């Protein structure tokens, strides 16, 4: 792989993600104001001291956006990582073990997937206390059902290959087969899936926060910021659209990279890569 072969669309995505990550990591150094400081009037227009204006309490929108990147990306990434670890572990175990374990895991996964993710989250979050780690865990568990499905399919695709059979005939153990024979051959599609899940996590977290069930105020996060400022819309104040645009931009960037990864995977498989 060389850098030249990466299409422009993927470059846009990579740069956008890098920018968001920079904001997230160096938020205190970049943001002109504090995350929770009331610094001006309510819904001050953009320009002057406040590059993007102020929010419903008079906090600087740009600063909150930068700090919000931190919360949003951290929670979404944490949820994706946990969901991936969980989904991959269970799916590979199911695929390699087969038989009863596979049936049990798969049936239970089917059951979990029979309820739409958002509805499931609403029901569960209605009962559980509001903590950040509970939110991450709920998101991760719900998302891991999707990871489980694709992980199992991919692992089964590879597991029936003859080189895996050859390893079993040699007498290799399950760990060797998973980590040395199957995993290296599934990295590419799984990487694309990771991106897809991450984009979905960002949107999902934002939706939950927007509904008032995600990250709790006064911490800044993009979905919550939309909720805070939504009442301004009727008065023509666009403060709610700014964090909304940020969510959309990050999700688009991630999807652009995923799109490229998927095309790459399909052409590696010898497919026509245009479907």
């Amino acid at each position, binding site marked *: 792989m060389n850098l030249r072969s990466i299409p422009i669309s993927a470059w846009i995505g990579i740069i956008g993600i890098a920018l968001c990550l920079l904001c997230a990591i160096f938020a205190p150094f970049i943001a002109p104001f504090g995350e929770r400081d009331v610094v001006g009037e309510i819904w001050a227009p953009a320009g002057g001291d406040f590059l993007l204006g102020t929010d419903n309490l008079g906090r600087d929108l740009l600063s909150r956006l930068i700090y919000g990147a931190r919360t949003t990306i951290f929670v979404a990434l944490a949820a994706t990582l946990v969901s991936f670890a969980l989904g991959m572990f269970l799916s590979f175990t199911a695929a390699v073990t*087969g*038989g009863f374990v*596979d*049936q049990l895991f798969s049936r239970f*996964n*089917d*059951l979990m*997937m*029979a*309820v*739409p*993710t*958002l*509805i*499931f989250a*609403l*029901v*569960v*979050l*209605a*009962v*559980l*206390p509001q903590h950040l780690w509970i939110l991450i865990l709920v998101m991760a568990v719900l998302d891991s059902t*999707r990871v489980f*499905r694709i992980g199992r*399919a991919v692992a*089964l695709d590879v*597991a*029936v290959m003859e080189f895996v059979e050859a390893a079993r005939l040699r007498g290799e153990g399950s760990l060797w087969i998973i980590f040395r024979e199957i995993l290296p051959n599934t990295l590419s599609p799984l990487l694309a899936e990771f991106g*897809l899940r991450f*984009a*979905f996590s960002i*949107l999902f977290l*934002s*939706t939950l926060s*927007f*509904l*008032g*069930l995600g990250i709790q105020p006064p911490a800044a996060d993009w*979905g919550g910021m*939309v909720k805070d400022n*939504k009442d301004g*819309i*009727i*008065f*023509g104040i666009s403060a*709610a*659209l700014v964090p*909304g*645009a940020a*969510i*959309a931009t990050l*999700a*688009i960037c*991630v*999807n652009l990279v995923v*799109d490229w990864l998927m095309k790459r995977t399909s052409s590696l498989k010898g497919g*026509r890569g*245009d*479907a």
Partner: protein
Amino acid sequence: MESGPISGPVLTDGVAGETHPRSADLSGVPAKPNPAAATGEIGGSFWRRFVFRRPLVALILQRLGLSVGLLFAVSLMIFGGIEALPGDFATTYLGQSATPQAVENIRKDLGLDRPWSERYLTWLGGAVKGDFGTSWASKNSVSEQIGKRLGNSLFLAFFAALISVPLAVGLGMLAVQFRNRLPDKIINVISLAAISLPEFFIGYLLIMVFAVQYGVATFPATVYDSMTLTERLSAIALPVATLVLVVLAHMMRMTRAAILNVMSSAYVETAELKGLGTFRIIARHAAPNAVAPVINVIALNLAYLVVGVVVVEVVFVYPGMGQYMVDAVTVRDMPVVQACGLIFAAFYIFLNMAADILAILANPRLRHPR
């Protein structure tokens, strides 16, 4: 992304699936409906004989049964699974600072002192009859509220589907027609962006532009009983537009992939080599085989629509099921949450089942058994 459980990768029973990828009959004799039945062991049970004689009916019955079972399991999960979670209804309902006495009172008040299995059976028995108990917060009948709001939500979803389905299929076909050329690439990039937009962002953007700046649409999208149909339609114009934008991109991309798959098949090549015209190839050779996957795509996306309704209703303050549920979740009004959750899940399962059954019906191998 949101695809149902039933249409998922079908489980192969371990050995049979993995043993013989190579010796699969190259000459193209298709899989028999049931290997055991086809090898002459037809004498088995009644069901086995039935599967052999009427594979289509059997498959559909199987799907129906599966969906009912799934719905039952989901009801168990929505009710029982929540019980198993850490935390107590009464405590979370009142907040951490509540006195033990208050907690005890509310437990009794809400009937939480009875064992959960008993409460579940009462609840399920009621749910089957359409009675979901009374709301903790408002003390109103949940079923009554849902009855009104479900109609509103379906009204919204129906018009969103009415517009998005033909549009998505049309755009998908357009993208196939211009595959890998400029129109296709433009559609691809735009749809990729559209997939990434959160529903509420689209919603507020539309409000900002059409309701606030130009004043051509109404916000909030309140509907009430005395409204005429035209008034209603103008009220839901923006929410419908939002929903359409949300599902359109997904549906279009999947339609494109489904049609492309058919167009690159060997039998379309055969038709081309017979010297048939483009129109005849598409109408006679591609379309009959593309119907099943496209119908599947539509049903899956309608299922997605049901969920999209939740956020859109909150954005537009539309009196539907979604808003009802979200409100109930914030005040932890469990009977409402459980009822709404079950109904949403039921629609989701039903649409996935419909997708499955339609795909089975459209498969000539199953319609004309050997």
